[in-house]
Every structure is written in C-alpha cells, then in structure tokens.
C-alpha cells in the first residue's frame, strides 16, 4: 500500500509540474495575473507530493519491505537504521527521486521567497523550473520506478554495496544534489530573463544568493566525497581525476565563475550577456554530470544504471535543455543591452580575468573527461586520461589565478591601481618568499615545484588577510576604530577574504600531501615494527570480530614516537556475507593537520599481513580549506543586501524601465 501511495503521489506531482510549466508561461505572455499566480501554489503542492513520494520510499526502506524490488536489491534487515535510510539514495532510482525532491524544494523556495519579484519574472522562473521537474519526474516514472513490486517477495534483501555503507556516503549525495540542483535556479532565472528579453542589476542580486548557496553545498559535497574516497577506498588518494569526480568539479568551477561575474553585474551592471551564458553553462554541466554518472557510459562506484534506455532518456533531457537554452540565448542575447565601462586594470578587469581562467580550466577538464568517450565512439580506441593530463593542463591555468587572486579585491571598481595593490601586497610577497626558501632549504633536493606551490598558497592566504586589514585600516587607525570598521564592513567583503583564504589553505594541503608524503608497502608479522617519518608502528595482533551485518579482521598496531606511545591504529578488512564482498577500513591517526594512514592488504596463511602505510603531511588542510571556503560563502550569504527582505529595493527599481 505504501509503495502504491508513493507511486501515485509522484504521478500527481508530474501532473502538477505540467500545469506549472505551461500555465504561468502562457500567463506571462498574455499578461494574465491569474494564470501567472498559478505558479506559486502549484510549486508548493509539487513539493508536498514529491515529498510524500520520497517519504513513502524511505518508510519502505525502514520497515524492510522486500516486496519492493528497489528495497530488495539495496537493503538488508540487519543493516543499521541510518544506512537503511541512506540506502534510499544509494541506488539509481532512489537517487533520481532525491534529485526530483530537491528540485521541487528549490522551486517551492523561489515561490515562497520570491513574492517580491516582478510577477512576470516570477511566473517565468517557476515555469522553467517546472520544465526541468517534468523531465525528471517523467524520467523516473518511465524508466526507473522505485516502487516496482516483486511477484514473489523474498525474505531477505541483497544489502547495500558495502563501500556505500558509510557516513561519508550517506551525506555526500544529498549535498552534491543540493549543489547541482541549486544551479537550476540560476538557470531558470537566466532562461526567464532571455524569455523576457531584459535583465538588470536587480536580476543579479536575485541570482547571486541562490548561486552562492548552491556553490556552498557543492563545495561541501565534493569535499565530503573526496574525504570518503581517502579513507574508504584504502589507498590514501583523495582525488583521482576520475570522470565521475570531474563531473562534479566542472559545475563547481563554472559556478565559481558565475558567482564572480554576477558580482560585476550586480555592482556595475556590466557583463550581462556573459553572466547569463555562464548561468546556462553551469546548470548544463550539472546535467552533463548527471548524464555521465547515471547513464552507464562510465563505470565507477557511482554508476548504478546500466540500462541503455535510461542513458538515451537522460541524453534526450540533456539535449533538450542545453540545446534549447543555448538556442534561446543565441536568439535573445543580442537584445540585452551592454552596461558600464571599465578599464582593463580594475576590479571588473580582475573578475574578468578570474572568469577567463576559470572557464578555460573548466574547458580543459571537459576535454580530458569527454575525449576518451568521443575517441571510443569515433575510432573504437580505448584510452584513459589520467592525473598526468590534468596536472599538466588544469594546474598551469589554476596557478596564475591563485597568484592574481589577492590583487582583485585590492583594485578599485572602474579603474584600479595595480602598482598600489602590489605595494600593499609586499608583506605577502615577502612571507611567501621566506616560506618558499625555508621549505626549499629543509627539503634540499626534493621536488622543485613543491616550494613554489607552497609559496603561492602562502601568498594567497596572507593576501586575503591583507585585503581585510586594508579595509578596516588596521595599524593605520586606533584599534577601536578598526574594530568598529570591521563590524560595519559588509559581510560579503569579509566572506570574500575568508573564502580566498580557504582556497590558499586548500592549496597548501594539496602541495604538502602530494610532494612530501611518505609511503611504505610491506608484509609484517605480529611483533614486528616498521618506521615512517619518525613514527614507529608495532604490529601487536590480529583478531576477528563480528559487526551488525559483516565480519571483520582487525589488526592492532601501537604507534610510538621517540619511545612514548601516542596511539593505536586498528585497520580492518570487512566481509559482507549478503553480497559476498569485502571492504578495507583504513585506520587514521591525526597529529596536528597531518595523518598517519594505515590500511590492510591480504593476510597470508603464516599470519603475515600486507600493509600499506602512509604519512600524509598537512593532509587535513585540504578539507579544512574547503570548509573555510564554505564558511566564507555563508558569511557572504548573510550579507544584509542579499537577505530576504532586501529585494524590495530591487522591486522599486524594476518598476522603472530596465535600461
């Protein structure tokens, strides 16, 4: 019964989405206020019904109703409750339902908080949003129904893939989807603006908070996925340039560019045509990511669907939305008027450089990800494009960006003073040079690139602090005055400095982990000791124990530094009977921002164990930096100008002719 309710609710949601896609659009065209006002309530009702559908599926998982195919294939009665719930989106059908739920959620949020929008823009935005909902809800019902029943209900389920039974993977997909789908709002706004044929600074003020929120979720989602890969896959890597990872990185880069170009549009009314294009591209890349991950063209841990009709269906959705919006763009963009002028050396100029480098870097990732697919389709040759490609292309484009980053906020709008900015950054130069020289001296004969990367990271970090210092005139004014200035500073300015600082932190972690890490792979017997970077690890014993739905073999290692015991590592191998598969659980010991990483290999008959041991210096900074970036985003989001009440000003402006 619950499954049928869930299915029926989804069908109703699709019907509502169809109404919401067509009626307001026609209403906005013929200026009929009643037809336009249909959008709001239907958006809320759609959320209610998709929510009901999702709740039904979750209930089926919680009560382990194995008469439903989806539950049978992905759950097990002995599984802990939290993984029963996360199992809902640990499979193709459920994850698409989650996608639809988040899409409906964002639509409802626009309906709720968008009361201040000009009515035609609001109607058009919600209609475009609903077009996407129609496509995805129809896709679920037609090809991936999560509520299908089995004729002969089995007694036990087949369990969730063990590598997915992890807290990291329980929260990774919802965060990632909040990011992907969040960009649908910027997309809907962009398409609505094209339909209306006009766009202004108020539009950018509307789009920025949504983009920012989506960007924050995507950043967290990517960081979480990367940390999961680091500790769960058991070989210490945190980013593999795997096509599936690239699929989430591309919308992130494009979204970052969009954040910055929307800023120019909001403040200076320039770069309009470009911002609209970026909004379209960002969501297109999110859709492309979904296609790559869900269609089965790539094989990876994320690929649930191998049914070709699904791939063709998603491809059709992709072509419709990307092709349609770009065609609309080509048709209507020339009618959008150009805005304010600026000199090449100016805040706008810096933001243009940011966009130029980000989009180019994004394009190289795009080529590296899709070239193997295109080549195989055209010639049949199978190739793999791995980390060397991306290090050689993405790296050289991203580093200049990091170096230019501290300059941007120090330049004035319209016309900036590059020399003045450089003078104010002297301290950052000096500290970066000292850091570079110190690292180079300590690691004499080590990698040459590493000290340079560390220098760039330090420069970016100190540069962000200098930006803040200059704004509050620290040391130029009495401390109390500086403090008052800090309190009075727009939150978005503080957020910028924090986020830029976070990116520097992230690069510092990457540079240290990639260049100064130590690795040992060896076979050990109980009682033996191995050393790495001044730490001595003694293999104490090997025990077997039972978990809720698995058995595990745990090796116990005592870690000593200079004779004193500083901790215990207990890496394990788990065997899951239901799927006859096993996972490797790495053990981590955190020392400051560095970690000792230990994972188990095979156990021989004579009791010796193969181990993989790493020392990862400053590795935690990679994820900590991402969290700092998100914190900067949150700070910026809380800015008064972007808060919900603020757009009333925007509305007044909109009543005047837009240009």
């Amino acid at each position, binding site marked *: 019964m619950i499954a049928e309710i869930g299915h029926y609710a989804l069908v109703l949601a699709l019907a509502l989405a169809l109404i919401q896609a067509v009626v307001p659009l026609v209403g906005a065209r013929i200026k009929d206020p009643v037809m336009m006002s249909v959008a709001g309530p239907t958006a809320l009702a759609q959320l209610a019904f998709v929510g009901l559908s999702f709740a039904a599926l979750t209930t089926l998982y919680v009560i382990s109703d194995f008469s439903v195919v989806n539950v049978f294939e992905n759950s097990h009665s002995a599984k802990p409750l939290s993984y029963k719930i996360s199992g809902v989106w640990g499979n193709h059908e459920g994850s698409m339902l989650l996608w639809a739920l988040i899409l409906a959620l964002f639509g409802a949020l626009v309906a709720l908080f968008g009361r201040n929008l000009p009515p035609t823009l609001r109607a058009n935005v919600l209609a475009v949003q609903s077009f996407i909902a129609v496509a995805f809800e129809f896709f679920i019902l037609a090809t991936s129904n999560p509520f299908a029943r089995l004729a002969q209900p089995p007694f036990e389920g087949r369990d969730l893939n063990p590598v997915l039974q992890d807290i990291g993977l329980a929260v990774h997909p919802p965060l990632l989807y909040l990011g992907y789908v969040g960009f649908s709002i910027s997309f809907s706004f962009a398409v609505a603006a094209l339909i209306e044929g006009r766009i202004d600074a108020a539009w950018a003020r509307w789009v920025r908070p949504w983009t920012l929120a989506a960007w924050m979720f995507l950043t967290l989602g990517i960081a979480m996925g990367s940390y999961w890969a680091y500790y769960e896959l058991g070989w210490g890597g945190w980013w593999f340039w795997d096509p599936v990872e690239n699929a989430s990185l591309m919308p992130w880069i494009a979204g970052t560019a969009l954040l910055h170009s929307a800023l120019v549009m909001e403040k200076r009314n320039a770069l309009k045509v470009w911002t609209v294009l970026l909004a379209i591209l960002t969501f297109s890349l999110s859709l492309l990511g979904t296609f790559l991950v869900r269609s089965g063209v790539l094989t990876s841990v994320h690929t649930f669907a191998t049914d070709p009709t699904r791939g063709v269906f998603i491809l059709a959705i992709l072509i419709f939305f990307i092709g349609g919006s770009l065609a609309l763009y080509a048709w209507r963009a020339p009618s959008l008027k150009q805005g304010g002028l600026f000199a090449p050396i100016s805040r706008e100029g810096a933001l243009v450089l940011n966009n130029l480098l980000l989009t180019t870097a994004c394009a190289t990732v795009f080529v590296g990800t899709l070239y193997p697919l295109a080549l195989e389709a055209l010639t049949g040759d*199978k190739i793999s494009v791995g980390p060397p490609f991306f290090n050689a*292309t993405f790296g050289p484009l991203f580093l200049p960006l990091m170096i230019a980053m501290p300059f941007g906020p120090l330049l004035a709008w319209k016309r900036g003073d590059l020399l003045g900015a450089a003078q104010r950054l002297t301290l950052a130069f000096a500290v970066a040079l000292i850091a570079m020289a110190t690292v180079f001296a300590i690691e004499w004969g080590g990698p040459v690139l590493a000290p340079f990367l560390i220098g760039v990271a330090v420069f970016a970090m100190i540069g962000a602090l200098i930006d803040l210092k200059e704004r509050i005139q620290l040391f130029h004014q009495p401390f109390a005055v500086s403090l008052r200035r800090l309190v009075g500073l727009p939150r978005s300015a503080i957020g910028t400095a924090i986020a830029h600082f976070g990116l520097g932190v992230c690069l510092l972690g990457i540079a240290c982990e990639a260049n100064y890490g130590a690795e040992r792979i060896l076979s050990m017997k109980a009682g033996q000791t191995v050393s790495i970077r001044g730490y001595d690890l003694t293999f104490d014993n090997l025990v077997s124990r039972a978990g809720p739905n698995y058995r595990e073999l745990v090796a116990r290692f005592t870690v000593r530094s200079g004779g004193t015991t500083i901790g215990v590592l207990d890496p394990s191998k788990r065997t899951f009977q239901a799927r006859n598969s096993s996972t490797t659980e790495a053990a981590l010991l955190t020392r400051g921002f560095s970690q000792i990483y230990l994972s188990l290999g095979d156990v021989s008959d004579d009791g010796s164990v*193969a181990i993989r041991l790493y020392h990862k210096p400053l590795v935690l900074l990679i994820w900590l930096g991402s969290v700092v970036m998100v914190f900067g985003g949150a700070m910026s989001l809380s800015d008064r100008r972007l808060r919900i009440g603020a757009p009333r000003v925007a509305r007044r402006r909109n009543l005047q002719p837009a240009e």
Partner: protein
Amino acid sequence: MTRKQRRLVMIGSGLAVLAVAAVLVMTALRDSIVFFNSPTDIVEKNMQAGSRIRLGGLVQPGSLQRKNIDASFDVTDGKNVIRVSYRGILPDLFREGQGVVAEGQLIDGHSFRADSVLAKHDENYMPKEVADALKKQGHWKDDYGNQAGAQKSSPVKSQ
C-alpha cells in the same frame, strides 16, 4: 582608451589564454594518455617493450603466485596470455577467473609490469573494457553478461 580598444584588450587576452590552454591540452594529450589493450592486441600489434598501456582480461585460474607483497598472474582473453607482475596490495575483490585491468609497462611481448591494478568491487561486475575485449575474441559467456548487466558496479583502484 576608447570602448573599441578596451574590447580589443579583452578579446586579445581571452584568445591568448585560450591559445595557451589549447597548447597545454595538445601536449598533454600526446604525452599522457594511455591506451587500453587486450592480450591479443599486444601480440597482434607487436607492441614495443616499454610502452605504457592498460591491459585488461581475465585472471587465468591457477596462475596467481604470491610472495609477501609481490604477486604475479596471467591475464588472458581466451586466445593469448600475458604474464603480469605487480608489487603492492591487490584490490579486495581480485579473484582468479575474473576480470581485471592493470596499468603499467610492457616488458616484452608476453610479460607486463603493473603499477596499478583495478578489479571489480562487487560480485556482479565485469569491467566494460574487459567485457568488450572478451566479446571480440568470442569468449564471452552469457553468465558474464548477466553479471555485467547487473547493477552496482565499482572498480576500485589499487596502487
């Protein structure tokens, strides 16, 4: 500066960055891509020793030998066999008789040194490249098809 000159500066710098990116992509594509080959490809194409490739096929049952962390095994596509040696930890679900993809260097026409080995991460999975290579050699069995067609596939890297 006039509007026209400013626009020229913008377009010029845009093209410059794009040109740099294009050069980077071209060089990287020439130097750092790796081709996938089956054992038969290696024999028939008479490939050079030292070339860096990905090798895929089935692990020949009974061929796996281990000594501490050194392992060696045969990879077959039913027609030809290549001996693979690997130093390190094999993936959790590395099994004889099942699909594997190894990346590394060709030592000579019939032996290969792997520096990373990918295996399936699930009972129901056959790497797509391996499945295609087996189909080409006519050694595809229907039960592989059932396995490859099943849901949830996940090769996991090992280095």
